[in-house]
């Protein structure tokens, strides 16, 4: 089925009404992913934006047309591994899926995620990365970029913003031999759909899909600019799209194209409130980090 057919014909398995912020691409990514995953899917959504907007429901009402459970912040990979182990005996075709934010994934959930990959648990783990704890008020997470002004890493006379550097969990999981790892971006839907499709075909281990998810509210940009920023993240190589499939790295086509003539990272950060205090040196530092990471990825994929 073509990407268009998938998106046009398959049922939207997410509740028609959710309370996500205007322009939230995480909601869009969830809807898109479920058009590929289909109804024979069990979903786990830990605390975070997508849980907060009502996907696991409220009171006695559910936000999904598939079974859905809200794990704890840090245990999604383990909990859904338990569901999958039991489901494998009943119906091995059922997908057991996590849809978690970056805080629940790269911070408190990293131990359980890494262990699930090590054990070869056949779950599909999505991380929508909006680069902070956006549901609780824009606190810094392990994927917050260096220098970003966040509510727990504020810029001020004695601070230059976030002291940490964005943690690269896709590469981390690839180098510990997860079965399938990919980076996805809602600005590049065909690539997005292909990667989810590939994940549904993998039966011998953990699939980890890391989605760039610009947060209009937290990044301080307009709701109608979120896809624009998503595209800029890919085209500036700030967020390269790639796959790691059973030992082989492949840079995805949108990023191969972008790599021929990348936009400067300054175009990606322009207009974002969280970066507006950065000096030219600090922006250059970000650019150098992006170039270094891109070169590494090219070596891995060569």
């Amino acid at each position, binding site marked *: 089925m073509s990407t268009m057919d998938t998106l046009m014909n398959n049922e939207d398995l997410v509740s028609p009404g959710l309370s996500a912020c205007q322009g939230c691409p995480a909601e869009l990514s969830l809807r898109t992913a479920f058009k590929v995953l289909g109804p024979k899917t*069990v979903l786990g959504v830990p605390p975070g934006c997508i849980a907060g907007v009502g996907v696991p429901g409220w009171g006695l009402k559910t936000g999904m047309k598939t079974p859905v459970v809200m794990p704890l912040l840090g245990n999604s990979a383990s909990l859904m591994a338990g569901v999958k182990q039991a489901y494998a005996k009943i119906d091995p075709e059922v997908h057991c899926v996590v849809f978690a934010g970056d805080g629940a994934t790269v911070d408190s959930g990293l131990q359980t995620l890494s262990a699930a990959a090590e054990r070869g648990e056949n779950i599909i783990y999505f991380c929508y990365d909006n680069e902070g704890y956006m549901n609780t008020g824009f606190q810094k997470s392990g994927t917050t970029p260096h220098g970003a002004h966040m509510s727990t890493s504020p810029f001020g006379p004695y601070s230059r913003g976030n002291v940490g550097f964005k943690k690269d969990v896709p590469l981390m999981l690839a180098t510990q031999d997860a079965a399938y790892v990919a980076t996805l971006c809602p600005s590049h839907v065909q690539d997005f759909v292909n990667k989810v499709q590939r994940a549904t075909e993998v039966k011998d281990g953990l699939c980890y899909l890391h989605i760039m998810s610009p947060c209009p509210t937290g990044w301080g940009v307009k709701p109608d600019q979120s896809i624009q920023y998503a595209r800029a993240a890919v085209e500036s190589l700030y967020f390269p799209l790639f796959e790691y499939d059973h030992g082989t790295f492949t840079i995805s086509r949108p990023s191969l194209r972008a790599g021929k003539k990348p936009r400067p990272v300054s175009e990606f950060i322009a207009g974002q409130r969280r970066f507006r205090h950065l000096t030219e040196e600090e922006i250059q530092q970000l650019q150098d980090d992006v170039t270094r990471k891109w070169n590494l990825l090219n070596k891995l994929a060569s």
Partner: protein
Amino acid sequence: MLETRDALTGNECAAHAVRLCKVDRVVGYPITPQSSVVEYLAAMVANGEMSGEFISPESEYSVMSILKGAGMMGERVFTATSGQGLAFMYEPYFSMSTARIPMVMAIANREMISPVTVWSGLQDTHSVRDAGWIHLYAESNQEILDSIIQGYMIAEHPDVMIPVHVCYDGFYLSHQSAVVSMPDQEQVDAFLPAPNVRQMLDVNAPCMVDGNTPGDLMMEYREDHLWSMKQALSVIEQADAKFAEVFGRSYGGLLDTYRLEDADEVLVVIGALSGAAKDAVDDARSQGRKVGLIRVRCLRPFPSIQLGELLAGRKAVGVVDKSVNFGWSSGIVYQEVLGALGKARLNVPTLSAVGGLGGADIRKDHVARVIDLVHECAQHDKSLEDTVWLRPDMLQD
């Protein structure tokens, strides 16, 4: 003869009980003094002695999380832990009982850090007595084995649906061998039917589990949980009685009593220290003193009415604890006993004794001292204000 007899450690007994209960999934992580429970089970699965699956994740936090996932699918699941492991799994542990998933967990009890200790003490499970689980405490290796089998019957009872832990003193029971009767598989199958637990996550009947819940609904869930805790009191007694019919062994259901009938002065104890305590009671009886003993087998739900009935008309009560209640500066079971006395409107003098922390020994002579102090309470009709510490040096003077 259906049963066979063998010398086994408490941890081996726990593993054999799990095998006999035909558990679908064991998830195990090593921690002293429990480790050999999950080692035995891993070996049983590897050798084909057990048909279930064994999973070995990276922490107790994941242990309880995987169990919750599989438990939501209706599987019969098990793990064992101790001390720090229980503390580390606290978050999914609490959500296991409140999601009403009926598993059994063995706890080889261990003192809590700081300072560092790996030895015995009941502080680990006593500190989580109000996290929604059922607490059974064993006195012997045989009781560990038998209580795990009873535990699945209790947990999976439709009026209960609450996970059970079967607790036993680390090292004293976990590592010491005793002769036990090993039930036959057919007997256990007849006693314990296959689980009839709902599969919560089903793609053919989609629903939500653990969604955001408003306060009014949360109150309903908690009220129902407390109602089920009350039902568990009689279900535990029924399970023990039915077990006695099939296997000929009983543990008193909620409260085990020893030479209590005409006793004026009563010791209340929990766990394996009851062995030394019963010997001390025997000594006192041989001197013509009317001393008896109650062993709390079930700490949650707390059998307050049953305990109040047993304590009515007594002249003094002494409670020996292997844990501390920091806020009350006494033992933990002691406060439970005070609650039962208050509920029954009994004005009986009491004392709290604490010993056995971090593997310290509670000897028969310690309990004899407590019996003397209980006698003083009875004579003066007055409770002892200060907690009695069962130290080695108290036996020297």
